[in-house]
């Protein structure tokens, strides 16, 4: 058997990987700017407007500031793990984008290029697994700091993320009962032909949204950080760009969660009547990418909007909401979805 390497395929995938990484970093960077602008507008202020027009260079200034800050590793900290923590947080944040279908296929010459890095048949499972890995970034960072407050905050963060992964998974199971597939590409294609899953799974979406807030450590679930009342969080001992990595990973996570919500429940790159427009494939694909990004930006805005509206939960309220409300609700949603699916398949 002859073994050949499809060089075009490799180059195409490498380009796609760099593009996706670049875009997620750029979006995360400008989310920090957007966050400050939205915060300012909601509080009747103007927000950053000194660095460049509309303050557009603000993220660069912030990044530059973080790079020039003093790098401190506490004397009794485990140096290897101390550096590993933020690296892991950043790595897991970037890994999730691999299975997301950013658009339909592009036809270049006689090649059909899929705008998805890897269309694996366990797509969503991969995301859940990587997000689960993300807890290690928090745990290791908090533990390696050799500070009891960091460690407590890390435990707090880890137990929160683990608690909210359960209802998130249960909400997704209900979705998979409808889709019959874990591949994100399949899920989007089904929504392109049928209806968006938000119409079939409104409660599932709500649970997913709440859990996504908790997974990203965003207000009202930002207890792992809690700058105001709990002297910081698991990154208490971090300074300079290592702290920047933790904060930046949060924004990448937010971006990926928004893409995921748009993909799973709001049709991904599909938009209504896209197949009856009579456009050729490539134009439609590009319009699809635009549609996906519009949906994503809307969800990023929702993340920020909620942050500046709702105050933080108390820790017992957080646990109560997770275990006593969301999990039973997700189970009920799963039960009803299962019953409806069975009824539609077999009748009575």
């Amino acid at each position, binding site marked *: 058997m002859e073994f050949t390497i499809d060089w075009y395929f490799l180059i195409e995938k490498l380009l796609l990987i760099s593009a996706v990484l670049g875009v997620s970093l750029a979006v995360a960077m400008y989310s920090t700017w957007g966050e400050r602008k939205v915060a300012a*507008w909601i509080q009747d202020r*103007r927000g950053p407007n000194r660095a460049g027009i509309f303050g557009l260079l603000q993220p660069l200034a912030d990044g530059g500031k973080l790079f020039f800050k003093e790098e401190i590793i506490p004397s009794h900290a485990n140096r290897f793990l101390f550096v590993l923590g933020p690296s892991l947080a950043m790595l897991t944040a970037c890994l999730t984008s691999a299975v997301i279908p950013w658009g339909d296929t592009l036809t270049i010459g006689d090649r059909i290029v899929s705008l998805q890095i890897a269309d694996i048949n366990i797509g969503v499972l991969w995301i859940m697994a990587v997000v689960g890995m993300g807890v290690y970034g928090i745990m290791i960072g908090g533990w390696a700091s050799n500070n009891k407050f960091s460690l407590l905050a890390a435990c707090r963060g880890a137990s929160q993320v683990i608690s909210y992964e359960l209802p998130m998974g249960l909400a997704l199971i209900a979705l998979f009962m409808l889709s019959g597939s874990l591949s994100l590409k399949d899920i989007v294609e089904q929504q392109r032909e049928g209806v968006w899953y938000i119409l079939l799974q409104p409660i599932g979406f*709500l649970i997913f949204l709440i859990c996504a807030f908790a997974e990203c450590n965003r207000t009202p679930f930002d207890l792992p950080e809690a700058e105001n009342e709990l002297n910081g969080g698991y990154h208490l001992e971090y300074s300079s760009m290592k702290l920047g990595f933790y904060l930046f990973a949060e924004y990448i996570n937010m971006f990926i969660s928004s893409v995921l919500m748009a993909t799973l429940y709001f049709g991904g790159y599909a938009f209504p009547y896209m197949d009856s427009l009579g456009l050729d494939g490539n134009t439609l694909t590009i319009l699809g990418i635009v549609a996906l990004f519009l949906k994503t930006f809307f969800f990023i805005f929702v993340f920020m*909007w909620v942050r*500046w*509206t709702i105050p933080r939960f108390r820790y017992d309220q957080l646990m109560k909401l997770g275990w006593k409300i969301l999990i039973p609700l997700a189970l009920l949603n799963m039960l009803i979805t299962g019953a409806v699916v069975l009824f539609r398949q077999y009748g009575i």
Partner: protein
Amino acid sequence: MQSLTNRATPVDRRPMNLWEKLYLPAIFKGMAITLGHIFKKKATVNYPEETRPFSPVFRGLHILNRDEEGRERCTACGLCAVACPAEAITMEAAERLPGEEHLYREEKYAARYEINMLRCIFCGFCEEACPKQAVYMSETFAPSNYQRQGFIYGKDDLLIAHPQKSITENKK
């Protein structure tokens, strides 16, 4: 207890009903409020480009006045320093020498005249006390400085420009 205003309302302590327990309606209401604020007029003034208007009676930084021939009006009588409740004004008097008539209006003048802007409370008593209309309060305020020393304003900072000299000559 008698209430001070008629606007007091008793706190509703009834247990929450199901609609309120859901929290979501209240959250959406809150989000509608914050969304409304996005489109409201911004309270911030873009400071160096635009400034808030001062009141017409605003008492700002002091100036030392000259007369129409450009001679310093101050005679170092010290009434402003006596009037000053914050003891911010210091001065040293000197006698006018022959040939200095074009510089100083009276026979005595202030060789040194300092106002500590950190002590000054901008009450305007010095302006009222001055018998020679030499001290006035302008409509600006002291710019920031890194050193305390920078807030002690001497004659160079306080004297207004000479009315009959060009800008470049005044800068010397």
